[in-house]
């Protein structure tokens, strides 16, 4: 019975292997002259995200709450709308009033949510 789950095990093993390999190689091959070196190249290497340019944002930088709010709302509505694609693709072939009604209901509920969010002022950038 359990052998059906073998692929999972293989997948996990591969993940660990590849991830571990990169980490180890980095450790072995990477330059190690960071300590005490004040040159900008060395500092840049310590950046969490290394892109060659000095990072303008310090560790303690905070995003505005509005950013999170809008981002979250975007993701919520975005994902909901994704559901519309498959339905849209099959709507004609199913030839079913039921499906149409369901989708209309779904969009209507989303619309209620949108009204709520809008009236609450969550879309205003503050």
């Amino acid at each position, binding site marked *: *019975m359990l052998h059906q789950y073998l692929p999972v095990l293989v997948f996990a093993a591969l993940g660990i292997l590849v991830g571990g390999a990169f980490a180890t190689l980095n450790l072995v091959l990477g330059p190690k002259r960071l300590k005490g070196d004040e040159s900008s190249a060395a500092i840049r290497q310590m950046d969490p995200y290394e892109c060659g340019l000095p990072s303008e944002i310090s560790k303690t930088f905070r995003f505005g709450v509005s950013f999170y709010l809008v981002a979250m709302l975007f993701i919520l509505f975005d994902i909901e709308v994704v559901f519309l694609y498959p339905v849209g693709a*099959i709507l004609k*072939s199913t030839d*079913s009033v039921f*499906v149409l009604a369901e989708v209309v209901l779904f969009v209507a509920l989303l619309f209620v949510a949108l*009204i709520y969010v809008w*009236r609450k002022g969550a879309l205003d950038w503050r």
Partner: protein
Amino acid sequence: MSFDAPTIDYAGLSPVIALTVGLVVIVLAAVFDSVRRFGPALALLTYAVTAGCLIWQWNANLDLVSGSLRIDGLAVTLSLLAVIAAAVAVLLAIGDPSETQAGRSDWLALLTGSLLGMVILAQATSMLTFFVGLELLSIPLYALCGTNLRRRESLESGLKYLIVGSVGSATLLYGLAMIYGASGATGFQAISDGLQAGDGMLSDSLTLVGVGMVAVGLAFKVSIAPFHQWTPDVYQGAPTPVTAFMAVATKAAAFAVFIRFFLVALGPLADQWDVMLAALAALSIVVGNVGALAQTSLKRMLGYSGVAQAGYMLAGIVTATQAGVDALVFYLAAYVAMNVAAFAVVVIRERQNGFSDDISTLRGLGREKPLLAWPLTIAMLALAGLPPTAGFIGKLYLIEALVDDDWTWLAVMIAIGTMISLGYYLRVVATLWMSPAGQAEAGAEIDTASLPPQIAGAQADPFEDSRADRRWYLVAPALIATAAALFFGVIPQPLVDFAQHAGDALSVWIS
């Protein structure tokens, strides 16, 4: 491509539809100032219509929406209990700082959403609706716990509940996945068939681990020891109307699906899980009752007592008989009455003394305000299982079901737990009636002083309502619930019929 629309019984679905429509209306009411103040009325109207639909469907016994929901006696009775609890929460929350701070209708929308989850959960007959219902129940509750925005404890309890609840949900989901793996089905009946058809599936470790994880996940939700640690903290920190709702309605809905999943889907495995659940029940009885002994906060004490009571109720499932389910539903109904009475008094007292729920604030209440003292007294006696209250009949019912199915040791455990519980329930009664008033003020002051500092930027809560014990919407739930706890203690037959209606729904699966 041909498409068959699922057969939907709209009459049977009417409670869910009513609640959904109500939810939409309440959400919209939250953002239009002119109608905002009608929020409680709208919520109560929604619940009344829902209750009406449930009673209309009282004798229904059919699958809705392609076998993912089912309306039957079990669903109807337990949904009704949840609806009653929600209506009480609406009343108790009128004027509560949590409700006003969260924006009236928003609070009510969260409550209604959670209730919708409960109604779906009570009807769920498929793992998908099971999980969706459970999450719909939980997520608004996490938010509700934190709605008292200016109290640190409230926010803390919301966060704590979110984290622990997510762990519970995740465990449950993992367990469901394993059971799906073992049975290859999502419908409860199909799981049962699949498990029996599969070769050796009934004793396969995959299945059993899955069953265990589902049990653990549900145990988190109904706060069965040892998965109860969140309960006292969350009960204490959450706004009291939310605690009242959470204590009874969550138990009603979660036990509905507990019953249905274990007795229908996992029915063939009853011999495997009954000992496990019996051990959990026994542990819960001991841990809950012993934990409650040392509490000085009423809400914390009720939290621990809830753990013990969940243990008593779980014993009803252990038997895997119809009598056990009847007893559980009866006990749950009695539990709603006793808890509502207790929490209503706590709400009133909290409003009168600046939100302290310390037991010492009850001193001398029996002499000064008998109208408040009696509901709490009756509630405590009922929770302790003394006659002539519904609590006594409930214990009697459970013990009868247990002894009838050869679980006498568990019945004795219930008796022992009840003895321990006298220690703390009667302490409350003694404080109400047998301590002189006067020290109450000192006790309350010390308590406010020891409160943690308010969170940054927030003012100390100026809210105090010395006339709270005259407000009908606070007193009426207490009195009605007390009357119910007494009435069903003296004339229990109507409630026994109610409970048996729930048990009859499962007559196909269990004896």
